[in-house]
């Protein structure tokens, strides 16, 4: 069908320090494909040979636009990166980085050796921790007048307006508390980490988590400071006021810190 015929392409998951390939022999990547390593000097790319007709531009595009296939691919990519990061320092590549064969991969390792080296140095011995702050005005219990009650001698209209005002104040209160918690959290956690990245807040419908995500940060933390970091989060959490909460995810392979600060690396 396509002009590429029935060849294979090289899908690259990550670049890391060389390690024993036997350790990933049973691991499968995108489309259930096995992994192999492409090594050039002191850099190793973790690769799957994928059928071109499933990974050429058109196929990839439709694959990425099908949410089910996208999820499969994202999980597979993440799974490989996670596995490899346990074996060697790893720079995760963004999803769907595909080359015409392993020779090209070798060329990319050579061409970007400096960038990879710098990033590997930056990430060595460090992990990423995700920290989110949520505000949830709805979960606060003491709504003084539950449903439509009026104070003695109060008209229904007045009672309605009063309840609206109370609700508004409750919300304002929660936002204020959330703002305070965000500021405090970032201050404390930045002090315990090497770098920080801000992600856009997650939409509640997508994450299926209650409350409004008001802060979504990633911190690059030295491995030996992870315990301190988590203890600090526990402390922040125990002091969090009603209606606001703080959550941690990870440790992640440092995806959020894999790119050189705010710049893309092109060929």
């Amino acid at each position, binding site marked *: 069908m396509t002009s590429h015929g029935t060849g294979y*392409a090289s899908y690259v998951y990550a*670049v890391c320090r060389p390690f024993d390939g036997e350790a990933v022999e049973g691991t499968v990547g995108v489309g259930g494909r096995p992994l192999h390593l492409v090594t050039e000097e002191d850099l190793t790319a973790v690769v799957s040979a994928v059928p071109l007709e499933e*990974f*050429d*531009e058109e196929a*990839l*595009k439709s694959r*990425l*636009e*099908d*949410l089910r296939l996208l*999820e499969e691919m*994202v*999980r597979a990519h*993440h*799974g490989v*990166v*996670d596995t490899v990061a*346990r074996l060697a320092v790893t720079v*995760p*590549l*963004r*999803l*769907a*980085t*595909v*080359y*015409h064969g392993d020779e*090209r991969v070798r060329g*990319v390792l050579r061409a*970007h050796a400096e960038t990879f080296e710098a990033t590997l140095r930056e990430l060595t011995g460090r*992990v990423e921790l*995700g920290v989110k702050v949520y505000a949830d005005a709805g979960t606060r219990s003491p709504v003084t007048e539950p449903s439509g009650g009026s104070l003695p001698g109060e008209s229904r209209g007045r009672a309605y307006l009063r309840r609206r005002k109370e609700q508004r104040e409750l919300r304002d209160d929660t936002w204020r508390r959330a703002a305070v918690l965000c500021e405090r959290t970032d201050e404390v956690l930045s002090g315990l980490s090497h770098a920080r*990245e801000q*992600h856009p807040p*997650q*939409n*509640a*419908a*997508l*994450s299926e*988590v209650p409350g409004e995500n008001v802060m979504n940060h990633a911190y690059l933390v030295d491995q030996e400071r*992870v315990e301190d970091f*988590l203890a600090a989060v526990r402390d922040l*959490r125990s002091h969090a006021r009603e209606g606001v909460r703080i*959550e*941690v*995810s*990870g*440790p*992640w*392979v440092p*995806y*959020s810190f*894999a*790119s050189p600060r705010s710049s*893309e*690396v*092109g*060929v």
Partner: protein
Amino acid sequence: MSEVGQIRPYGGSAPSNLVDVLERVLDKGIVIAGDIQINLLDIELLTVKLRLLVASVDKAKEMGIDWWEHDEALTSGTGRHRDEELAEENRRLRERIAALEENSGSVEKGSGKREPAGASRGGSRESKGEER
């Protein structure tokens, strides 16, 4: 929800929140131009589309619009969830029917049209198996 105590060294098979994974695998990670020029902007566009879709989901739900919940392409994730809910509901209904049959069994036994309650219940269970 992720409790601090549940933190493990690199998630691995640990169930990570898909959105957390998506925002990293899709938006982060080192970007190097591949030979297959799947335009990375397209991927960004896709996440924007996802976000737009999802942002409007909130509003639409408030208005009682939920057509996408029946669109398989848009709800592959939650679809499975709904299947489980339906299966659970089916199971409850079957139990309820079984309970009702048991109660009415003593009444119907006399009619001669049905087998004794025990056998009848066994029978209906078999047919449930076939339905699946």
